[in-house]
């Protein structure tokens, strides 16, 4: 079947991509600015076409635990929410990470803390990238910057999650979730009937029973398990780091930005260059793993790296760790649902340059 072009909201693109990818199940709970994902799926009713199960849970806690149960059966299952709901999901997420199960979680971030605002923000970076729930674990975190990537990262997220038996998260924001863009959709894929050997599917005579758990009361064994997880995260860092560069070849200054902020910075690069300021952009596509090595290389030749985020400054800490003192790192951010303009970003860069 042909690929299809459609004009869609980011949230709708996620929902449609999940059906087309052949996801087995979606479990969600309404919250702005991502309710369209659940609404779209309910309307599309894929149970009748592909067999994909869609269920509105009684809470985000229940939804993520449904994902846990489905993932434990080896099924391709997902959930989505926005910041306050993602906080509620953290218990389930750490169990899923601890049980080494693949699944996809979408966070269409809004401003916080608390109930905050329904406007877009990037203030859940720490929560997404550093763990979020308790214990030593990481998610694979993908940061889409367009409606196209919202759709594409559904498949990528599931593929990586299954490759590494690790939960993956799409860290988006209210702007990308709500805006409409042209998107090229993959053809419908049949849902796979093959289930992994570790899945709980009912124990046949021919194998030992499968147990999905995150519990080990023996500290020696638990430490070994933690080391195994770390090994896995190192491998993910080695093989799966993704980023994009824009006009970095001759840059004296570099913006580091993901998602919505990266789009703003791309425009800011153009504006600054019109004024003769040689600035480029590095856009992390994966936030975990973070493009540490590339930033460290770039630090050799640039004067300033400016992290631009819709937060009080979270990713900037990873930029600093990557650069490890080689060059100056600063941060520019708006919060509470405010989105910076490209002019604002350029102005801020000029102030920094003046201070150099």
């Amino acid at each position, binding site marked *: 079947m042909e690929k299809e072009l459609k004009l869609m909201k980011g949230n709708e693109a996620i929902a449609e991509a999940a059906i087309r990818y052949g996801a*087995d*199940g979606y*479990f969600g709970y309404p919250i702005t600015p991502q309710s369209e994902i659940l609404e779209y799926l309910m309307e599309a009713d894929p149970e009748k076409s592909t067999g994909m*199960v869609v*269920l509105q*849970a*009684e*809470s985000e*806690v*229940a*939804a993520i*635990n*449904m*994902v*846990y*149960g*489905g993932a*434990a*059966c080896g*099924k391709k*299952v997902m959930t989505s929410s926005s910041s306050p709901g993602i906080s509620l999901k953290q*218990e*389930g997420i750490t*169990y899923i990470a601890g*049980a080494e199960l693949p699944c996809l979680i979408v966070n269409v971030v809004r401003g916080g803390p608390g109930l905050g605002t329904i406007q877009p923000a990037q203030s859940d970076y720490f929560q997404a990238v550093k763990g979020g729930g308790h214990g030593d674990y990481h998610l694979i975190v993908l940061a889409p910057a367009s409606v196209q990537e919202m759709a594409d990262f559904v498949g990528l997220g599931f593929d990586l999650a299954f490759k590494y038996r690790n939960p993956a998260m799409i860290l988006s924001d209210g702007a990308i979730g709500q805006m409409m863009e042209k998107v090229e959709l993959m053809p419908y894929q049949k849902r796979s009937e093959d289930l992994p050997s570790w899945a*709980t*599917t*009912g*124990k*046949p*005579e021919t194998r030992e*029973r*499968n*147990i*999905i*758990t*995150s*519990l080990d009361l023996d500290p020696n064994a638990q430490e070994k398990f933690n080391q195994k997880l770390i090994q896995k995260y190192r491998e993910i860092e080695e093989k799966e780091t993704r980023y994009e560069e824009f006009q970095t070849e001759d840059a004296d200054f570099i913006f580091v930005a993901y998602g919505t902020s990266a789009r703003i910075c791309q425009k800011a690069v153009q504006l600054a260059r019109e004024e003769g300021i040689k600035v480029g952009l590095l856009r992390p596509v994966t936030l975990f793993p973070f493009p540490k090595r590339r930033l460290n290389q770039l630090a050799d030749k640039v004067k300033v790296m400016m992290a631009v985020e819709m937060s009080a400054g979270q990713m900037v800490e990873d930029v600093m760790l990557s650069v490890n003192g080689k060059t100056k790192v600063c941060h520019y951010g708006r919060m509470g649902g405010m989105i910076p303009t490209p002019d604002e970003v350029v102005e801020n860069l000029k102030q920094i340059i003046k201070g150099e």
Partner: protein
Amino acid sequence: MAEFNPKDIIKPENLVYRKSKVLTDNVMHYCPGCGHGTAHRTLAEVIEEEELQSRTIGITPVGCSVLMYNYLDIDMQEAAHGRAPALATAVKRLMPDRFVFTYQGDGDLAAIGTAETIHTCNRGENILILFVNNGIYGMTGGQMAPTTLLGMKSSTSPYGRDAATMGSPVKMADLVALLPGTCYVTRQSVHTAAGVRKLKKALKKAVEYQNKNMGTCFIEVVSNCPSNWKMTPVAANKWMEENMFPAYPLGDIKVPAGE
């Protein structure tokens, strides 16, 4: 006189009882006299007799029975505290031809997991919820549970449970029986042979109803916790009969129409 040799009588035709094949050889960690072991065994026998082993997926709780997967030779998932019905919901929706059950204590099911319990029953998920109510938090050392009886002492109700400040015992079976989603709600026990036989019958009905997709089956086992009740097993069972059973009367609360 010929010497007695046990081998002479260990013959298939003399067999009156054997351990279920669905039970592993692992030594159970439960305290002497605890009802959990008997509840496990009864369930294992039903899984074997109904030939369900290859299509059963069980969900264990957080509580004393957290390690249930060590004792039953079936595929199992270990849930977070109170969340087993949410896992079971997805498992059954995604694999409708499997036999799916949760096994939960009263803290797990009636406190932290109340929302999951109620809504799973309300959606009428085609699963079995096997609820072991011992009126206390066993695993964490005897704290008050939502099911703790009025006046009953626990480590967090050292002067006895007071209705005015601590609420009254929650009768989960009666609550879920009100929901149209449940098709079978019953209270059973495992402290006598007769009780075990009745539980086994109830479990077999639950299997039948699940096979027919009739809705949620909720079986409560009113049980004991000798260790945290600070009683010998015999005294605990007597206390249970005299105090728990009046508050949680045994028998069917809801049966499918026409049964």
